[in-house]
């Protein structure tokens, strides 16, 4: 098991390197000259070739590509992502707090999504084909299909503006969490509860359930066995779901003016603030790889077949 964990962690290192290289290459392929962007952002009235060359030198952009990538990578590992082109502030001082805010929103939403998915999934699986199962699936299909920005606008209009029950935007108190979390949950719980349900149902038809019943075990105990086996699948799915939710808060954050990564990155993209975009993509990729690795390890630890073979 120890060796498996070490292996798994080592495999993720080259993966991260490739991702970082791709990020760097793609952003540098952009037709815009970064030096020009910087000058524009700083509001320099007349951009001359001389000024561009000078800025390039300041930013170290006259160096060969590989060297620039290498410098950026080493600095990034120390959380030094350079300075924002627009504000001139260190990128980390902007992205750090934003990441924390997004993380809070993602964490609360993920917990709600996981609890809802397991609850609904188990209920539907136990009542497979009955009215409860059919209606939950029907409603969730309908809700999942609704675009989240539309849902968010409707909720803001009714709950916050018309009845003034909750804040429209920002991140002031626990009340600010309610609407965004509901919208995120509606878009994702409908997908993940289906996974739990399917995995429960396939376990329900396993021989060990029949044998347990044939031995006279009470339904409660059998359900515990089924849950233990079906949650193994669910855990790896949730492991992958959390970074997806983290990445997809862009839309929600912009609607609710949540001071997180999503708002920051959209602003950065609009103003072509390359260092922030680079850092954003890199951090998101790292989170993806991290969660993937962790969920693999947890899965291995839960499944005796894998655990003992390692």
């Amino acid at each position, binding site marked *: 098991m120890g060796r498996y964990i070490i292996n798994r962690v080592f495999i993720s290192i080259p993966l991260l390197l490739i991702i970082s290289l791709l990020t760097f290459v793609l952003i540098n392929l952009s037709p815009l000259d970064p030096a020009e962007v910087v000058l524009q952002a700083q509001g320099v009235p007349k951009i001359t070739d001389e000024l561009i060359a000078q800025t390039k030198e300041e930013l170290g952009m006259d160096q060969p590509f590989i060297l620039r990538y290498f410098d950026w990578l080493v600095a990034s590992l120390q959380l030094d992502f350079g300075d924002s082109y627009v504000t001139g502030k260190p990128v980390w001082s902007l992205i750090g707090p934003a990441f924390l805010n997004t993380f809070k929103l993602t964490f609360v939403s993920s917990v709600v999504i996981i609890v809802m998915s397991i609850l609904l999934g188990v209920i539907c699986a136990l009542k497979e*084909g009955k009215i409860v199962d059919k209606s939950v699936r029907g409603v969730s299909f309908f809700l999942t299909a609704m675009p989240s920005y539309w849902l968010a606008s409707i909720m803001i209009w009714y709950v916050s503006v018309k009845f003034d029950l909750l804040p429209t935007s920002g991140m002031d108190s626990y009340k600010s969490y309610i609407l965004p979390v509901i919208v995120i949950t509606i878009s994702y719980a409908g997908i993940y509860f289906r996974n739990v349900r399917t995995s429960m149902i396939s376990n329900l038809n396993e021989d*060990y359930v*029949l*044998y347990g019943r044939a*031995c*006279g*075990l009470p339904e409660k105990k059998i359900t515990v*066995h089924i849950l*233990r*086996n079906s949650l193994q699948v669910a855990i790896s799915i949730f492991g992958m779901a959390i970074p997806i939710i983290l990445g997809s808060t862009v839309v929600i954050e912009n609607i609710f003016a949540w001071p997180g990564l999503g708002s920051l990155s959209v602003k950065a993209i609009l103003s072509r603030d390359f260092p922030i975009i680079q850092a954003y993509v890199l951090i998101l990729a790292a989170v993806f790889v991290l969660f993937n690795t962790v969920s693999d390890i947890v899965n291995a630890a839960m499944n005796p077949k894998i655990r003992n073979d390692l």
Partner: protein
Amino acid sequence: MENILEVRNLRVWDLNSDKVLIANNSFDLRRSSCLAIVGESGSGKSITCRSIMRLNGSSLRQSGEILFKGENLTTLSEKKMRRKRGRKLCMILQNGMSAFDPSCVIGVHLKETLAEHFDCDWKKNEIEEKMKLAMESVMLKNPIEIMNKYPHQLSGGMLQRIMIALAIVLEPDIIIADEPTTALDTVSQFEVVEQFIQLRKKMGCSMIFISHDLGVVRKIADEVLVMKDGEIVERGPTEAIFLKPEHKYTKYLVSTRLALSENFKKLMRGETIVAES
């Protein structure tokens, strides 16, 4: 000899497609005797067994009477029926590999089952001791070690014998064995059949034994039911069936003797490989 189990007009159908899977079957199991059910794949043997235990899937419905020692099982409450399962009617499945929860050690299932049936009248240690003895009696050495193993760490034959050992401790009136030997290689098959013969000698319990292997059936059964497409086409004492088969289908079975269908054998070979690897 009196009948311990009487099945009257058993009919099983699929709610979704309205297909009839078992058509109006009646048969008896006599006390301390062994009844074999043979027939090709899909002829409804497993469904018959599961109907007796009332363990068919939710999409299947059954009608007819199942009289166990004169008591009609079909009208019992679910709770009372559960008490009968394991303690009075015990099932042994075809594939030991999948019959135990893959993420628990074997001991968990054994302890849960025994606790369910004996908690009130037996002391814990006594049951464990009995379980160990039963496991040793079916040639499982180191019972403690085996109880701490996961299903995938044991062989199909061992798991099959664990089910037999559990049946020995539960002392049911009827053991229903659904193709207990088909998923095994020849050597373990021989061992498991030996255990079944021993089991009958030791406990004198009645048995319903499903098998594709007519050789095994001839060795173990007193009476044989031949099923085809959900219907019983022939029945009688084992020797009579083997010596003077009357129905065309039975003649065909006895003449091919070893296999009921070539296709099925091929499939089973595939399954055996999967079970072993």
